[in-house]
Every structure is written in C-alpha cells, then in structure tokens.
C-alpha cells in the first residue's frame, strides 16, 4: 500500500481552512458520536459484549492459521474457491485472472476497504474492464477521482452541493439534465444510473465484514442494498478480504453484529446484514454460479506475535475516527492513506512502512478517546507509541525536536543542573518581559506563540522558593 504522509501538515492546514469540510466533520463528530452514545445507553450488556468480542478476536488471532484453514475447507465444501494472496499485487492478479477466466467485461463493486488498499479498480480498468463502484459514497468519489476519506462513509468530506455538481457533470451524458438540490432526488438518480450496471455486470466484487470459519460464510453489513445486488446478480462473485476477518462461529458473528452498527453509526443493526455461503445451490432463485474468495495478507500476518497483534481485532467500525479530535479537525485526506484516523495511524505504517507513514502515529495527543470507544478495546495510543519508538530509532523526527528531547532527557537526569539552568532562565525571562503574558517566543516555542500567549512564569522555580521557605521556617520557628 502506498502511503506518503510527508504532505500531512500542508494537507491538514488546507483542511483546517476548508469551511465545507469543517462543516462536514462537525456533523460527523456531533451526529455519529451522539447516536452511538444513545444506542449504547439503550444496551445494558454493551460492556459485556465488548469484552466478549475482544476475547473472541484474541483467541482467533492466536490460532489464525487453524481458523483460516477451517474457513477455506468450509468454503471449498460448499463449492467455492479460495485464493491466498500474500500482497496487494498478488491479490489484484487473482481478481483479474478470475475475471478473465469468466470472460468478464463489466464489474460491479460494493464497498471494500481492502480493494481500496490494494488499489484494485484502477488495475482492472487498466486491463480493459469496466469496474463501477455501487456504494453511493464510493460511486461519488469514483466519479470525482478521489480516494475515500472515511472507512465507513467514504464521501463524508463532501457537501450536498458538491455531490450535486458531480452528478450534474457526469450524468448529463446519460440523459439526466437537471442539477438536483434534494438529497432524496440525488439518491434516486444514482439508483437509476446504477440499476443497469447491476443487471449487466458479469462479475460482482465485494468485501466481507466477517468470515465465519464454521460454515464458510461471509457476512456483509451494509445499508444500501447495493452489496446484495452486486453479489447476487452476476454469475461470478469475488470476495476480497483481509485474513484477520475470520471468526470461529455463527454465534460469534452475532456478538460482532450487535457491536458493529452501534459503534459505527448508532444503529442497532444495519439495514442489510447478509450471510452468503458458497455459490448458488440447485434450488436457489439467485446467486452466483462461481464463488471466489481472495484472502489478502499484505502485512497482516506479520502482526501476529508482534507488538501490533491487538490491532488485528479491528472490525472497521470507524468509531475511533468519529471520536478523534485530530481526525475531526482535518478529515481523512490529510492522512494520504485509505486508513485514516487512529486505526489508520496504526495500520498504515504496517501496510506500507514507518518512514513513509511517520506523521500518522505522530499526529495524536494520545487523548485516549479512540481506545475508550473501540468496540474491541484496542489500545490504540499504545500501538501508536510503538510506531513512535520505531520512528525515533530511525531518526525520522525533525532535528530540532530530537535535539530538544535529548536535552530534556539529559537535564532531567541532572536535577541540580536543571534547577540552576531553569532558575537562570526564569530570572532572565522575568526581566525581559514586563507584561503578564508573552506573545512571542523564540525557536520552536514560536509554534506555541504563533496562535496563543504564554503566561510569564515566576522568577524562580517552586523548588527554589520551597527551599528558601523551609530555611526560613527552620531558622526562626519550630517545625510545623
């Protein structure tokens, strides 16, 4: 996966000044966070479910190979095919080959972050296939040539007016000549456009929210119905999914289903929760004749047995994004990765490398809200700190900061020297500045005073004042 976070700061600054984006982020933060809160308040066993889900995932990860093999066998028994892709290139190749083997010209796609991760659609288009995103948000950004900015709501960064512009620009050649104003009308127009795509597709590609080892079933959690049309109509269905999606049983699936929609959008359950097992059977009215699953590794197996193992619990709910004050300030595009927000800060360096992605785990205050809302209790700040350790060892941070950290560490291990130097500094400061507040500090501290003031400290440290006070007390009075 290609992540270049060196543009994070300039992109973030653009985002901070983008009024339309700020409005969208405000709605996202207030809306989904609030809905989630309500949904959880109405579910007394939420905390118990979180613990169960965490335990199921931890258990599964510890036996990932066994569960994946069990899953593979179950899929094969039901008449499906399983392909093991080590990396994104292999995964793309598998999908292309399956399409070519089935003489496919047209592909429909339901939303799958893994397909974004492996950049599947451009690859298919390069190889002569028409690949249409059918998830409304993905459809919109496909028209605009953008990457998703949120793992659940890929077009959340756009306003209603921007969508209207996009539809007007691209739908005219299809016979739609009116620039729409109403959201309902826009959805209706998209629906009309996509209808023929669904029906004409040779291959449908989907992701999977969960892979049930017990039965070889894939679980799809969606709200639009596009996944059902994508997977049931064409002759061939290809599932592209990460190996960490496997869970042991259907019973386990129910635990996660109860957590997922609530954590994501505050709904008790999504509009469509589908369980798909293998190709169509003889008496099935619909369903694909050919059922393929491409299991994608791309750095995931490397997390097993590592300090990042807990990240494999992630069920891609987006609660961490929706509550992260940094994500809500700058939106997903600033991260230059399809995985943004806290979960992206942990995964992006793993799927690419820390040198390229170093800003992502760095741009956090470690407020801990992400960990607090994660349905499977992933210790996200701890995992981001792991990446910061790596970045530090690789000397990826700016020299000023590294130098500053070194000095800070040195002085703190020489308390007497530190006290002396600080007291000298405070003394100088108290004489340089006459007012209560300082509005300009030198060097990197200038980043502080660029937007806020700094109260002038006292002329000496507490320890120095305390010492004097103690001496006075001992000098003239009894011990208190």
């Amino acid at each position, binding site marked *: 996966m290609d992540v270049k976070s060196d543009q994070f700061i300039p992109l973030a600054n653009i985002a901070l000044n983008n009024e339309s984006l700020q409005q969208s982020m405000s709605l996202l933060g207030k809306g989904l966070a609030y809905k989630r809160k309500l949904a959880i308040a109405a579910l007394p066993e939420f905390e118990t479910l979180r613990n169960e889900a965490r335990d199921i995932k931890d258990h599964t990860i510890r036996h990932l190979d066994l569960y994946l093999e069990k899953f593979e066998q179950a899929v094969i028994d039901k008449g499906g095919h399983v392909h093991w892709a080590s990396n994104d290139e292999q995964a793309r190749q598998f999908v292309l080959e399956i399409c070519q083997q089935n003489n496919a010209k047209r592909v429909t796609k339901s939303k799958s972050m893994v397909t974004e991760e492996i950049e599947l659609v451009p690859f298919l288009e390069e190889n002569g296939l028409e690949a249409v995103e059918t998830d409304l948000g993905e459809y919109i950004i496909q028209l605009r040539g953008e990457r998703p900015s949120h793992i659940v709501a890929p077009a959340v960064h756009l306003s209603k007016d921007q969508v209207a512009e996009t539809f007007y620009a691209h739908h005219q050649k299809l016979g739609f000549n009116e620039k729409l104003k109403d959201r309902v009308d826009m959805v209706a127009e998209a629906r009309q456009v996509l209808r023929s795509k669904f029906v004409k597709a040779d291959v449908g590609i989907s992701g999977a929210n969960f892979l049930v080892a017990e039965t070889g079933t894939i679980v799809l959690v969606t709200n639009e119905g596009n996944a059902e049309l994508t997977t049931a109509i064409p002759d061939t269905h290809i599932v592209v999914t990460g190996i960490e999606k496997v869970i042991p049983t259907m019973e386990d699936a129910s635990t996660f289903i109860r957590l997922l929609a609530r954590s994501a959008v505050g709904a008790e359950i999504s509009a469509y929760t589908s369980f798909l097992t293998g190709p169509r059977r003889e008496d099935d009215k619909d369903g694909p004749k050919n059922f393929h699953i491409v299991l994608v590794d791309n750095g995931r197996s490397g997390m097993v047995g590592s300090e990042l193992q807990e990240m494999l619990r992630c069920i891609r709910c987006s609660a961490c994004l929706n509550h992260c004050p*940094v994500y809500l300030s700058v939106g997903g595009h600033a991260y230059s990765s399809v995985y943004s927000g806290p979960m992206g800060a942990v995964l992006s360096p793993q799927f690419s490398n820390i040198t390229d992605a170093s800003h992502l785990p760095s741009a956090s*205050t470690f*407020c*801990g809200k992400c960990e607090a809302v994660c349905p499977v209790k992933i210790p996200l700040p701890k995992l981001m700190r792991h990446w910061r350790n790596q970045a530090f060892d690789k000397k990826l941070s700016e020299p000023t900061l590294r130098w500053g950290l070194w000095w800070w560490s040195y002085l*703190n291990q020489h308390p007497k020297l530190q006290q002396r130097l600080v007291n000298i500094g405070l003394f100088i400061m108290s004489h340089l500045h006459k007012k209560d507040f300082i509005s300009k500090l030198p060097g*990197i501290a200038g980043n*502080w005073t660029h937007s*806020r003031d*700094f109260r002038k400290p006292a002329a000496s440290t507490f320890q120095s004042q305390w010492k004097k006070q103690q001496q006075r007390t001992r000098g003239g009075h009894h011990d208190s």
Partner: protein
Amino acid sequence: MSETMETKPVALFLTCLLDNLRPNIGFDVVQLIQACGFKVEVPEAQTCCGQVNYNGGDKLSAQQIAKQVIDVFLPYDQIVAPSGSCASMIKNHYPTLLEDDAVYADKAYALSLKTFELSEFLSKHADFRKTDDNLTLDVAPIMAKVTYHDACAGLREMDIKDQPRALLKSQSIAIEEMQEPETCCGFGGIFCVKYPEISDHMVTKKVMDAKQTNAKALVTGDLGCLINMEGKINRLGLDLPVFHFAEILANPQLITNSAMAINTVVDDEDSATIMRNEAL
C-alpha cells in the same frame, strides 16, 4: 507515640510544569495535603515524570528517567501529583516501561500502588459534606459557578471525573458543564508545537465551548491543559480566568469575591480532614 498513617509524610511529585512555570500552585497543593493532616515533603532530586520522552518514542530516556523517579520516591508511603498525566505515567506506564528490568520491575509496581493524583487523594482523605446536584448544602449557598475541563489522561487513565467536581462543590462552587468537557484541548505535549495549527484548532474549540457557559472561571487538573487554554483565552481576549482546581480549593476567594474563609464543620477531633482556607 507511635507513628500513624497521618504522621508519615506524603511526597509531593511537583511535575515539571508546576515546578518551572507555576510555583504558586505548588504552595496551594502543599496546603491542601496538609489540611488532610499529612506532613508534606518535596524530594529535591525530582524533575520530570518522563512522559515527554516516552510519548516521543524515546523509550530508553523514559526508562532512565523512570528509574530516577523511582529511586527518589519509592521510600515514601504516599506520593501525590497534581496532574493526571504525570500520576498516570508513574502509576500505569512505569510498570510496563520497566517490565523487563530485573531490578526495577518490582519497584515500579510498588511505586504504582502508592501514587495518587491530587483530587483522588483529597477525595479519600478530605472530610467534606457529600453534595447532590441540587447543592442543598446547609453550609453555604452557591458562591460561584465554574466550568471544568477533564484532562484526558486523568479522565481516561486515572478515572478522574467526579472527584474534582465534588471537591469544588463541597466549597459551594457549582459546575456549569460545557458542551464537550471531555474533548481534548489540543495540548498533547510535543503535539502542540509539532502540529501547531491542529492544536490551535482544538484549543480554540475548547475555549469557545468553555466561554459560552458564562462560568466565572475555567478549572482543570493538569497544567499542560491549563497553560494551553489560558494562553489561547488571552490571545483571543476572552474574559475567562483559568485555574488548577488546587488553586480554587485553597483560595476560593479567587472566584467568589469573598474575603471570608470558607469553613466546613469538623466532625470530630480525629477526623482526617477539613478544607481550611487561610485568607490571603
């Protein structure tokens, strides 16, 4: 006379920000702990808890600093820090940081058991009237309204939420909650100078939220948050003083405009605490 718990001195972990930037708060903290009946000692060889290096990815330095802190503070029975993040660093992170150290792993664990954040400590040892939301105190009517910012580490790593509020309420200070008291103020240690624009965005949101409560003051429990919010408020020219809760508890007249000390009733001679306030 045998030494009771109350006569064993409490070690004050100042925190680097307090020591270097806000010594006056240190004296307030000493006063509050003494009001609980404890002697206070301020070990000399203290500097920083090491969270800056720890969160900066400099694990080695963090370990070295942690060992130093442990050496200085382990001899004491109780350690109190007027900061959720520093208390948490010692209590929650030192054991993990030093888990592979043959000598210090156990020491870090031992220190973690006796390290407390200030409001946590005061809540245990202060004897104050329990209040309810209607503030039907028979002690005194509401003297002032403040709004409270929940510092992140204190809230999420030390469970500090009700304690400072209850302590303030016991002094007839009501809390007018802002819309998002638990949202990060944007300080984040190095974060505020490494990502200054994002930090500015966050602190602006925070102080505007605090201002719209029309509270007399903004109160919090961590100095990083304090200097961050105070600096922004001053730059924006908003009329909203910012205090550490220790300042208010030790000097309620800072916001109540009352020259009178506020006394609570002593239940009995041996009872641990009284929030006493000397008129300054």
